[in-house]
């Protein structure tokens, strides 16, 4: 997309032009193109997950509905959760990490460009593998949390759970690889003068999230390997009759699952921490506190997993410890909210689309945060857990928080990526419809849950008082869909408009706005020197005179070969040993080719 313009902007230095054509995208190691691939893949899966949600709402519109069978419904809510968390939100955020972070730190690319391409292709392989289960006997249907022992071959006899294990293993490995890449990039490739306490908040949160990923995914991977062994080789990790324990899975899952929530929300927090100052024309209020509170949220996030397990019967000591620790998270989160409002206070607020969505995040996340405190209280949670109250809570956090934050980022950085602005009228309509749609969808769920409606039920009887709430939710989902269509219309229309955005259309302060829109392949003609937190405001940047020597990495198809080999090996676990061995051979050959690829 828009690559010809990018080429026009670059000045023909070494590696300064983009090659065209499909092959150039397949072999690209450029962080901006990989960012675009990540984002578009994430957007695609966001639509897939949204479609799954629409079907769920259709089934639940009225009691005892028969649009979907129980089994299909269970597959849909399982895949809706997995798709939104792992294949929509994370890749859309990864798209922004890829495209924006190197620009924000004044770097020419990430530290390991080919590894970056590899993590994209591996993520895509995982996503496609898991989703292909729909065509090979049915998707997993035990929930995204996949509690043992429902997932054993006795109680989930089809191949759905095998796809779950294998697909998520690939996606998880892709995330870990990408996270390591960003940690090294952010620590090592910052422009001169760009100290840690001058980093833009989005880069900061990318760093924090990257640490969360490398710490949170391994326990989950171990859990899925246990499950794989239980299912394929007859081990008994989660089988009580053989001395195993299904609760072990819950610990392994939630040690990953809860930090995962912060993996989803902190990038959005990073985005609005950059957007709100820009559109208030004021620096971020209490920068160090906003940074530290982000780190603290991530740190505490590892100590609260068992608040998903209050009804398991872990006993009062464990329950009170996890209850108390969970409540503590409200403090750094509240601090962020207050700091954002204080940033607006005394400013000169321009209500452009990125700002509307950022304000929306503050307003909506507050609701999700408050209901979060309600089920941090273990006794109260015994009535709320596994009900629609929790569905309401998590969607205020992940839709009202993460999705609003990501939309703020999309509207904010679209001109940087394409050189074009998204239409402001459609954007405003999109915002209001989405705000109304999400509130109408999710607010009634609080009541449905408190009045006793459990989640993950493909039907509900008339007479328990759930009818009105569910119908309202379904109408709200329809409005949300309409809002999304407006966004897509805007997206496509704007891509065809004139490239008039200019380098810094929002008059923002961070480094990505110091280069052209879209930026040249090498990002910056000369590496800028930074002398303040808001380099483009208050004379915080110095551009050294003269030409700079640099070298851009060459395109490579080896990352795709390695990812494809791993995909084949994973599929081999389902198809047969020869395919698995062939896949492993391809992956090894790919690694060999990659290692000895000449660097010009």
């Amino acid at each position, binding site marked *: 997309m828009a690559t010809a313009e990018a080429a026009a902007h670059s000045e023909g230095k070494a590696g300064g032009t983009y090659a065209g054509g499909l092959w150039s995208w397949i072999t690209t190691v450029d962080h901006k193109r990989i960012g675009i691939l990540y984002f578009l893949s994430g957007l695609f899966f966001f639509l897939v997950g949204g479609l799954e949600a629409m079907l769920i709402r259709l089934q639940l519109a009225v009691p005892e509905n028969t649009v979907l069978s129980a089994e299909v419904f*269970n597959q849909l809510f399982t895949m809706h959760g997995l798709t939104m968390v792992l294949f929509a939100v994370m890749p859309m955020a990864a798209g922004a990490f890829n495209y924006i972070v190197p620009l924000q730190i004044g770097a020419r690319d990430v530290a390991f460009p080919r590894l970056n391409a590899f993590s994209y292709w591996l993520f895509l392989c995982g996503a496609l593998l898991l989703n292909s289960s729909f065509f090979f006997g049915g998707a997993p249907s035990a929930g995204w949390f996949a509690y043992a022992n429902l997932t054993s071959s006795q109680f989930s006899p089809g191949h759905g759970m095998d796809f779950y294990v294998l697909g998520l293993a690939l996606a998880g490995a892709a995330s870990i690889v990408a996270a390591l890449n960003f940690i090294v990039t952010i620590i090592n490739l910052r422009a001169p003068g760009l100290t840690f306490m001058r980093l833009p908040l989005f880069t900061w949160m990318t760093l924090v999230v990257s640490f969360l990923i490398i710490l949170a995914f391994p326990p989950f991977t171990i859990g899925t390997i246990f499950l794989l062994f239980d299912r394929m080789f007859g081990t008994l990790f989660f089988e009580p009759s053989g001395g195993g324990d299904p609760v072990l899975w819950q610990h392994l899952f939630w040690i990953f699952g809860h930090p995962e929530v912060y993996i989803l929300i902190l990038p959005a927090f990073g985005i609005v921490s950059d957007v709100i100052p820009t559109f208030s024309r004021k*620096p971020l209020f209490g920068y160090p506190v906003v940074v530290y509170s982000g780190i603290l949220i991530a740190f505490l996030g590892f100590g609260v997993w068992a608040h998903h397990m209050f009804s398991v019967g872990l006993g*009062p000591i464990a329950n009170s410890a996890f209850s108390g620790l969970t409540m503590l998270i409200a403090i750094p989160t509240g601090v962020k909210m207050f700091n954002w409002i204080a940033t*607006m206070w005394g400013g000169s607020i321009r209500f452009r689309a990125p700002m509307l969505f950022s*304000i929306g995040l503050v307003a909506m996340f507050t609701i999700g945060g*408050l209901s979060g405190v309600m089920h941090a209280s273990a006794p*109260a949670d015994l*009535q709320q857990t596994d009900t629609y109250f929790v569905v309401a809570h998590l969607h205020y956090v992940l839709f009202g928080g993460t999705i609003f934050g990501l939309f703020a980022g999309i509207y904010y950085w679209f001109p940087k990526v394409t050189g074009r602005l998204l239409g*402001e009228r459609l954007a405003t309509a999109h915002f209001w419809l989405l705000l109304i749609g999400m509130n109408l969808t999710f607010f009634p769920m609080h*009541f449905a849950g408190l009045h006793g409606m459990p989640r993950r039920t493909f039907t509900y009887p008339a007479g328990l008082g759930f009818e009105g709430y569910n119908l309202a939710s379904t109408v709200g989902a329809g409005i949300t869909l309409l809002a999304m269509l407006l966004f897509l219309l805007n997206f496509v229309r704007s891509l065809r408009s004139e490239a008039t955005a200019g380098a810094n259309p929002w008059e923002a302060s961070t480094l990505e706005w110091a280069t052209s829109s879209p930026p040249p392949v090498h990002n910056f003609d000369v590496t800028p020197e930074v002398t303040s937190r808001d380099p483009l405001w208050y004379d915080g940047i110095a551009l050294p005179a003269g030409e700079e020597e640099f070298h851009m990495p060459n395109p490579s198809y080896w990352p795709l070969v390695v990812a494809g080999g791993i995909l084949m090996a994973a599929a081999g676990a389902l198809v047969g040993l020869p395919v698995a061995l062939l896949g492993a051979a391809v992956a090894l050959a790919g690694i060999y080719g990659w290692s000895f690829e000449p660097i010009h």
Partner: protein
Amino acid sequence: MTDGRPRVPGHRRMLMFAALAIASVAAACGGDFPQSSLRPQSDVAREIDSLFRGIFWWAMVVFVVVEGALIVAIIRFRERPGAPKPRPVHGHTLLEIGWTLAPAIILIFIGVPTMITLWRIDRPPERSEVRVEVVGHQWWWEFNYPDLGITTANELHVPVGKTVDLRLRSADVIHSFWFPRVAGKRDLVPGRVNQLWFTPDSVGVYPGQCAEFCGTSHALMAMRLHVEAEEDFERWVEQQLREAVEVEEAGDDPLVSAGRDLFFGAGGCISCHQIRGTVAAGILGPDLTHVGGRGTIAAGVLENTLDNLASWIKDPHDVKPGNLMLDMGLDDEQARQVAAYLLSLE
């Protein structure tokens, strides 16, 4: 591109929130909610409810402060032509300490009652007056009263004002026992025995259902709680203790006797079901000794009528997809006969 910015009047936001709040409250007050956690009928449920209400009001205070500050900020500090450039304020230490401490203090007001309630309800009960063993199955509930020697399914009978002490275990996967009117959830975990107790304080019939996803028909794993006056409960116990043979002698129309023959013969029912006092001693399915006396069948999914029972026997998987009950290939008439026999087992 910088002009023509849309105006977003703050009052529109406020109106929207108000409309939402009113609609929600109106909806909440309108209906009858037999399974609501907000209508507690036991000591434990009341305690949880009052804890929740306390937290709710603190949350409302925070909600009003945060959303209020946000609305004031976006109205007061919207861009105006000719206004001076904003001062680059980088922070304010006292303010930041203030809004770090404020939530911490509120958390004390939430955390202390939380801990008090938690330590009261999450320990063994002071008295244990009616002991029941609950066994979760895909997708029905087995209730055993070890002190009374009663086994029944899907309908739990307890006397009002007595502390009910439940031991929960599972026969297959994880389930969660939930009667919102009398207690919070407690999971039934394979390989473990969990405990839950409550003292119901009002006579009535309360619906409940499984709250942990447990497979295809998780949504169809409901149950009923009958909280009864002491003498009613005792009458029920007496009835349950009787063997089915005595019941059978009571009435004997041709439909029932044909059904009985099918049940013990060609129907094959006895391989999974027990009817005490007869040769039927299966253990896989629910005990049917007094199934005719239950208000519902198929774990709270259908009213216990002749038609419903017959359609369940004829095609159990149509009613509850994936369940273990076998389709024994009975025709409509045969299904009605078996249903009539079962209904005679009061």
